[in-house]
């Protein structure tokens, strides 16, 4: 572990970047997005990364997310740089088939990914690098170096700690940075690639004090997470499959694709034609055309069956097939849901026997409004801005 100061961080990043492309969070109209940067943005970013600045400028002691700053989490997850929204596969002309390249072969540096997002990649790995390897995904994985940034500002939708993750997780990162006081970062090599990179850096070795500081920050960040998902065991999941519960909880669902498209682990896609070009693009199981066959057969015609599919795929089928839930607790699906469909509440409510009404979630055993709700009501009375 090493300590990087403002200057050494900038130099280090320049070193890492070399002739790679740079992907980093960018703020646009008050929201953060992961984007591939153009050369001009790159220079600015490398001099003193905006996201790093955001991470270190927080005021300790203030309740997380309680500023007017944009959500600390990017709107999009990093999955699109490995599993693009639109990917050209090949051209099929009436007189022949013209293959496309799987990747452009460029090295890429992905800066300041959160632990939830990088853990999401390890979940996608199980699908795309499993029995049949998706070469383009594999290439993108190999060609990308991921520098993670630990999260000091989980917000009210985060629940990563209840899914084997945490704001200070390192799964899926090559290198992890912890923002300390005074514009310093604790850098930790995670993968072999990351360790090798770190070795190229002079910087000073981290002392005990700094490690202790990081440890305190970790505790504070984890403590700031207010929500916890409690996934019922397979038996309960199986037993509740046909419950009227699913109609109840999916009633407000608009069957749009926000939850799937922003999710770091959702990976359903479609294969479509644009003229003679065949390509693959994101798709969502909530769409009413997802499973509809040409002759009209559709085994998930009603929206509750599609919503249930999303939940079961994440919390039952994926677990059965890959021994992990396909959810990292980033909270994007709830945060951006047009009608605030609450995945924690819904999953926690699966096992409840109460037949009707909204599930109470795990925060309280006795109906609602419950803890988080009560908290936000309290926050409201002192000023609505504080809710954020």
């Amino acid at each position, binding site marked *: 572990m090493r300590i990087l100061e403002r200057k050494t961080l900038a130099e280090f990043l320049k070193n890492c970047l070399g002739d790679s492309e740079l992907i980093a969070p960018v703020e646009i109209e008050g929201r953060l997005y992961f984007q591939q940067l153009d050369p001009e943005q790159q220079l600015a970013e490398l001099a003193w990364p905006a996201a790093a600045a955001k991470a270190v400028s927080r005021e300790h002691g203030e309740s997380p997310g309680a500023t007017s700053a944009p959500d600390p989490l990017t709107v999009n997850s990093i999955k699109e740089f490995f599993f693009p929204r639109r990917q050209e596969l*090949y051209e099929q002309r009436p007189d022949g088939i013209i293959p496309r*390249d799987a990747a452009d072969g460029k090295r890429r540096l992905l800066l300041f990914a959160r632990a939830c997002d990088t853990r999401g990649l390890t979940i996608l790995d199980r699908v795309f690098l499993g029995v049949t390897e998706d070469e383009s995904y594999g290439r993108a994985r190999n060609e990308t170096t991921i520098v993670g940034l630990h999260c000091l500002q989980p917000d009210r939708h985060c629940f990563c700690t209840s899914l084997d993750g945490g704001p200070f997780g390192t799964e899926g990162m090559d290198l992890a940075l912890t923002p300390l006081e005074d514009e310093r970062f604790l850098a930790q090599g995670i993968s072999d690639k990351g360790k090798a990179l770190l070795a190229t850096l002079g910087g000073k070795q981290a002392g005990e004090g700094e490690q202790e500081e990081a440890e305190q920050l970790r505790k504070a960040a984890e403590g700031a997470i207010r929500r916890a998902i409690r996934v019922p065991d397979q038996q309960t999941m*199986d037993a509740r499959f046909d419950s009227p519960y699913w109609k109840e909880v999916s009633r407000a669902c608009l069957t749009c694709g926000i939850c799937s498209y922003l999710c770091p682990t959702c990976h359903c896609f479609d294969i479509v034609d644009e003229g003679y070009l065949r390509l693959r693009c994101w798709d969502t199981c909530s769409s009413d055309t997802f*499973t509809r066959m*040409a002759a009209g057969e559709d085994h998930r015609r009603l929206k509750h069956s599609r919503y249930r599919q999303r939940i079961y795929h994440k919390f039952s089928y994926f677990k059965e097939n890959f021994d992990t839930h396909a959810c990292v607790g980033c909270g994007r699906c709830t945060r951006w849901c047009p009608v605030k469909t609450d995945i924690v509440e819904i999953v926690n409510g699966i096992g409840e026997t109460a037949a009707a009404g909204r599930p109470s979630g795990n925060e309280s055993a006795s109906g609602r409004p419950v803890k988080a709700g009560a908290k936000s009501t309290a926050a409201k009375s002192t000023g609505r801005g504080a809710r954020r």
Partner: protein
Amino acid sequence: MTPVRIYTPFAARVRELRVETKDVKTLRLVFEEEKVAETFAFEPGQFVELSVAGEGEATFCLASSPQEKGYLECSVKRVGLVTEAIHRLDPDALVGLRGPYGNSFPLQRMEGRDLIFVAGGIGLAALRSLIKVVLAGRGKFGSILILYGARSVEDLVYREELEKWRSLKGLKTVLTVDPGGESPGWKGEIGFVPAVLERLNPGRRNSTVITCGPPIMIRYVLAALDKMGFDPQEVITTLEMKMKCGLGHCGRCNVGPLYVCKDGPVFTYARIREFVEQII
């Protein structure tokens, strides 16, 4: 650089477009590259993704026998965009073909057993490959019953072959059409496949049932077999579902922990029993 290999199809040429019924055609396809033709191997029950330039890709089971070398056959019912395009193809047109995907019928386990094939409509296409292999190794299997039904006499596919099979010894072929679908001189049965199956009441001892057809037929056939006391382990079906990738990635054909494309399409009734409601 590596091409996106897993999705890039092999080029194949249409050698024959046989009209089976008013909305079913059987394509005979030959790979353009000899190397591909030599290495492409499949088992009865597997499927391919067939694509037409500018129209799209769709899933079809291989209806020819792996023992017939040099070509592949798929039977295509005209129902949507891609199947329409296939029906419009010129003889000698170029199509894309990738695969084979999915599992296959457990041929070894069927050896020594009496086989009951129950098919409806275009569903016979999914069993044709297996039937051909079984007939080629006739000695290894017990008695064979083929029960095949369609909406009407005109909707029966593979009529020449059915005639041929009918003339074979130790093989019983029963054809049926839905009530109202018979034509003058129809000598077969009249009635829905599950009902005819119950009437025939084939022995369940040492029998394996292989069934494919429209979802509604499969559902009632499975129910009938349940009633007749067949062992769900010895009831095998092959499922159709919306598929895109064929690799267990795209999520469309996911039902329960299963992906029909990679864990299927061939399943024993025992395996899918708990999901039947969701599938068919």
